[in-house]
């Protein structure tokens, strides 16, 4: 659990973060979204004391972060940044093993953890262990950067635009990977991004920042349905809100009995993708299946209704 209570940061008369109060429940993902200069990165760096607040308190697991020596604090918090910051003079295994080594894990434990993480990110350990970062592609480097942040099994992971440098095809895959990892390890994640769609897709809750102020903090559906200010609305993009809402929901609860022609869609497909398929294949109703078994059908009308303002 991370708590920020009336946290501010003022530098040379400029307010970078203004009186922000937030609570992040354990095991959830909070995405912090805003335009550049909104203070979102500073907010992140306040948590692991890379910058110090001018006012306010930050608590991690009930303890005021100021009572913990900064280096010790940071070894217990994973930190993945844009541009990943992989050490070019160390192999992949050495990079991942940095924090465990700082924590004096024994060598076998570190080696096992390295292999475990490489396998998790679908990188063949034997192939990747001893490579230098320069010999990796951008997508691989990004994955190693996140693996490095997770190496010491931290309860908290801070991420600053970790997917920014990836091309769209890889980015979606990386986002899915993150959700899967979070579910598996139960890590509390705070992720900063300027991409609203990414924020909606990944976050259990979303915090919107504008010029240092926390403007709205809500779950994705509530955010899309009821943006608190024009700024939030602008970030969301007026034209897209129906589809954003539909992207957040899945077809499973909308299945009704009845026949429908053509290839079925999987349970768990988002309403938006289902509607897209329905339009593309010109079918007013689609069959839905799970594990090869047809559950029923979902009609276009039902799908469209999901786009209404809640």
């Amino acid at each position, binding site marked *: 659990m991370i708590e920020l209570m009336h946290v501010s940061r003022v530098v040379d008369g400029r307010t970078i973060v203004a009186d922000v109060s937030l609570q992040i429940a354990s095991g959830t993902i909070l995405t912090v979204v805003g335009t550049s200069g909104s203070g979102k990165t500073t907010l992140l760096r306040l948590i692991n004391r*890379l910058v110090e607040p001018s006012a306010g308190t930050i608590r991690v697991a009930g303890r005021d972060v100021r009572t913990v020596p900064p*280096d010790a604090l940071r070894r*217990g918090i994973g930190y993945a940044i844009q541009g*990943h*910051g992989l050490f070019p*003079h160390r192999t992949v295994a050495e990079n991942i093993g940095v924090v465990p080594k700082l924590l004096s894990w024994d060598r076998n434990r570190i080696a096992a953890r390295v292999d475990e993480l490489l396998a998790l990110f679908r990188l063949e350990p034997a192939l990747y262990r001893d490579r230098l970062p320069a010999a990796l592609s951008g997508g691989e480097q990004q994955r190693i950067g996140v693996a490095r942040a997770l190496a010491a099994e931290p309860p908290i992971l801070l991420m600053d635009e970790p997917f920014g440098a990836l091309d769209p095809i890889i980015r979606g895959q990386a986002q899915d990977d993150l959700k899967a990892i979070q579910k598996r390890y139960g890590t509390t994640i705070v992720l900063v991004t300027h991409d609203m769609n990414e924020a909606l897709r990944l976050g259990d809750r979303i915090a919107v920042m504008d010029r240092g102020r926390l403007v709205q903090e809500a779950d994705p559906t509530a955010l899309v349905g009821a943006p608190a200010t024009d700024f939030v609305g602008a970030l969301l993009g007026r034209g897209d809100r129906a589809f954003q809402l539909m992207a957040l929901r899945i077809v499973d609860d909308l299945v009704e009995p009845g026949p429908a022609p053509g290839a079925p869609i999987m349970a768990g497909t988002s309403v938006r993708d289902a509607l897209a398929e329905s339009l593309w294949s010109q079918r007013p109703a689609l069959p839905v299946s799970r594990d090869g078994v047809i559950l029923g059908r979902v009609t276009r009308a039902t799908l469209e209704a999901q786009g209404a303002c809640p």
Partner: protein
Amino acid sequence: MSVSRASIPKAALLVLLVAFLAAPDAFAGLFRPLAPAGTPPIYAQTPLLTLAVNHLLLVAAATLAASLLALGSAIAATRPAGRDVLPFARALANLGQTFPPVAVLALAVPIFGFGTVPTLIALVLYGLLPIFETALTGLESLDPALLEAARGMGMTDRQRLVRVELPLALPMILSGIRLSAVIGLATATIGSTVAASTLGEVIVSGLLTGNTAYVLQGGLVVSALAILIDAGLRALEAVAARRAGSHA
């Protein structure tokens, strides 16, 4: 170590140099036409090998001292606490270069006596600037994302310096040390004017007696040493660059 075409002449030079230092009299015939009639063609006051070794030791000591001083200052000047000192440190290193070594030598003699000590001082002063400037450039041109990542992972400042900054800046630092050593090899000859035991002794003797053979012997040995040491340190730089992961 890979053998490229470029290293063949250097290897030949090395063999030639070692042969000459080990058995200088074998080369007497080469130098005889250049020496005035009646004088021995090979400098014999002190064995050339001894002089060469003393010369190298002197330069090694001076380069080591200059490296420690310059590197220490560069590190201090790139820490947040030391930012203010930077223009001053740079000015000081520059100042060290404007003092001609002869003058430093001559001025140090009344205080430190003749011989090795004033020469060492002059060499250290003169060798500071290249190392300081390259170390500074190396440390300042590091990718900020790397330093941020290192800090964010919980490395202490010292761990970050030793495990990240220095290894990555090493190629540049080594290039400065190389420059300083090569310059120092030539400069150390001047130490002979204040009775330091270097290869300059051979040159000075030749100048005073009008014996071009001696001048050549001293000069060419120093030159050969400089070329070889430069090549050796370049190879070291290349290794450091590879280890630092520069785009292979």
